[in-house]
């Protein structure tokens, strides 16, 4: 693997850098109102898309540019270096559609997903089906040319802002639990869909519970074959665990710069332990970035993400949570007295990273299986 940019990549990087410098909205990270910040992120998504920076590695016929995923990595890096707003995480739901949808579905759903016209959420988990996702109970019963969905989803992040949902529901209660699940592409505005935001410890309504009461979904909005839902879900989470797909590297770099800034403001840069801790945080971020690069490079050569996504997920949780610990240690009492309340909120936002997309313990189970350890 060659880590240098090819001449084309270098040129792309330079153009991108110039564009970002001119386009990043000033003061965007000072916005505190949640709805406004959601709006800003949606706007940024559209701005990026119009400039051709969303879905660069997607086929042209579905709204992409047909480039190598390395371009996404460059976008991640440069966005982070220049402090751009978070990148849209279209990748993981998009992949599921891309890989399993009919031609007609792809043409219908992918372009608006990439362009940011339609935003998506992931309706997998339920109150009784978390780590053990396959035990989900939400039922989709076939009734003529529609499925009728009843049940409750939990933790549907962005559910309160989403237009569409990638929903898992049980279509066959009589087969073993992994086999009776199907996936659906459902509009969140359908009658019978009720969304209730869930506020996490940070104080932000990060996620939502969604109630499905006699929601009617046309058969042509089933994704893949009946019973193929489990496979689709596993593809989705495999991509979700790839930090490159969710714009993590950019976020991490931006946050690290902010933490370095905090240390400087407080005159702590002379302290060797602080310098080492900041350098350690940099190293953690680099290790993660390079691990992602390798995964991307495997993807370029045609391999789908496998269990190694769990490695990245664990590195990601560790990097993010350690960085928030470091910020807390630098801020000392200010984080507890409300002087730096935003950082306390970021700290609590970092905690579920080791829970969602499969908890840290589940990732370790997957790795143990990958290592073929006795069960």
């Amino acid at each position, binding site marked *: 693997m060659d880590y240098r940019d090819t001449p084309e990549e270098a040129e792309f990087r330079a153009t991108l850098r110039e564009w970002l410098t001119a386009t990043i909205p000033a003061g965007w990270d000072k916005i505190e109102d949640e709805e406004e910040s959601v709006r800003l992120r949606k706007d940024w998504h559209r701005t990026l898309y119009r400039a051709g920076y969303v879905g660069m590695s997607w086929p042209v016929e579905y709204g992409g540019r047909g480039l190598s995923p390395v371009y996404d990595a460059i976008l991640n890096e440069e966005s982070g270096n220049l402090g751009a707003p978070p990148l849209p995480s279209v990748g993981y739901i998009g992949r599921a559609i891309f890989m399993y949808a009919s031609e007609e579905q792809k043409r219908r759903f992918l372009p608006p997903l990439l362009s940011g016209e339609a935003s998506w959420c992931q309706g997998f*988990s339920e109150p*009784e089906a*978390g*780590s*053990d996702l396959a*035990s989900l109970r939400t039922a989709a019963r076939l009734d003529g040319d529609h499925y009728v969905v009843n049940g409750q989803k*939990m*933790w549907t992040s962005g559910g309160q802002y989403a237009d569409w949902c990638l929903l898992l529901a049980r279509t066959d209660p009589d087969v073993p639990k992994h086999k009776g699940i199907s996936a659906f592409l459902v509009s969140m505005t359908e009658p019978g869909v009720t969304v209730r935001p*869930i*506020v*996490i*410890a*940070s*104080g932000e309504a990060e996620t939502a519970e969604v109630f499905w009461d006699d929601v009617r979904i046309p058969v042509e909005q089933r994704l893949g074959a009946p019973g193929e839902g489990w496979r689709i879900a596993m593809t989705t989470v495999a991509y979700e665990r790839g930090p490159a797909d969710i714009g993590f590297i950019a976020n991490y770099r931006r946050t690290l710069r902010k933490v370095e800034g905090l240390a400087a403001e407080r005159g702590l840069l002379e302290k060797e332990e602080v310098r080492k801790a900041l350098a350690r945080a940099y190293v953690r971020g680099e290790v993660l970035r390079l691990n992602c690069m390798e995964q991307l490079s495997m993807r370029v050569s045609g391999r789908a993400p496998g269990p190694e996504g769990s490695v990245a997920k664990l590195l990601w949780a560790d990097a993010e949570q350690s960085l928030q*610990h470091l910020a*807390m*240690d630098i801020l*000392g*009492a*200010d*984080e*507890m*007295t*409300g*002087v730096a*309340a935003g950082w*306390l909120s970021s700290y*609590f936002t970092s*905690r*579920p990273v*080791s*829970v*969602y997309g499969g*908890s*840290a*313990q589940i990732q*370790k*189970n997957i790795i143990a299986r990958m290592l073929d350890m006795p069960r």
Partner: protein
Amino acid sequence: MLKDVAAQIAGSAGPSNPSDLNTLDRAAAWRSLAQAGLLALRTRDDDGRPVGSGVEVAVVAEGLGAGLVPVPYLGSAVLATELLALAGAHDEAEALSEGDTRTTVLLDRDLSALAVLPGDQTVYAWDADGAADALALTAGPDGHQVVRVSLDTGFAPAAGSDLTRTLLRSDGPIDGARLTPVGSPLSAEALLRWEALALTVISADIVGVMRAAVARAVAYTKERVQYGVLIGSFQAVQHLCAEAYVQAEASASATNYAAWAVDELDVAEALLAARTAKTQAALVAREVTETVMQVFGGIGQTYEHIAHVHTRRALTDRQVLGDEGVQLVRIADVRLTGE
């Protein structure tokens, strides 16, 4: 005995989720503490000895920490009362023990020490629920003088991380005319004695918070089913809980010794024991409460759930009168340079 009383009060006055904090009858809890005589433990008897030992105070602090009880036991009944007693202001200490008035302590900007006025500009009244005033120090020729500052003017509520304790902030400077001296100047030794007790009870509060949090998590592992089994049967979950338990118990051992040392050992040794306890408790407070959130999975990440209330209280306690970093430097001073 004391333990049972504390546990009983904690049981009825502790929140089981954050929204309880809006509805709990804090006044009733405070009255129960007063009636049980627990607010009087650091007042002095006729021989000038504390009514209750450091061990007893720590037992109560741990119990109230375990219940996440939102009353200013540490602020008013221990830290302020002890300071008054050491300054010989016995009537004022007695008055607090009846429970009708409350006083707390003023801490400096980073919560790491008692505020020294007029030097400190930004100050915090910590654990100030219902307190009319707070105690700080002024430096004088005969040592430190305890002064009382009314919280009526210049103080505003701060949005602190700890949802169970009231924090007020003043950006000062506080006018000298607002400072009322109480009692006689404190000797250096008295101040160190106070610090030993204060560090110990804060550690005891952290221990209570951690032990209760771990117990809640363990109980959850015996209820929550995934993959058709209780999650407590997964070795990964067992190890998480076991590690958190070990750290909490280690903190308890160090705190128990420090609590005994408060009244039994000379001040230097008592303070070293207190710093040892605070170091250990502060060092693991974050990790233990984070582990508890992790064991609860998604639900433990939500605002409605009790898990983060433990984390918030433990994180703030960690800062008060100095985190492990502060304590380690002091311990190194004593061990390596004999100062």
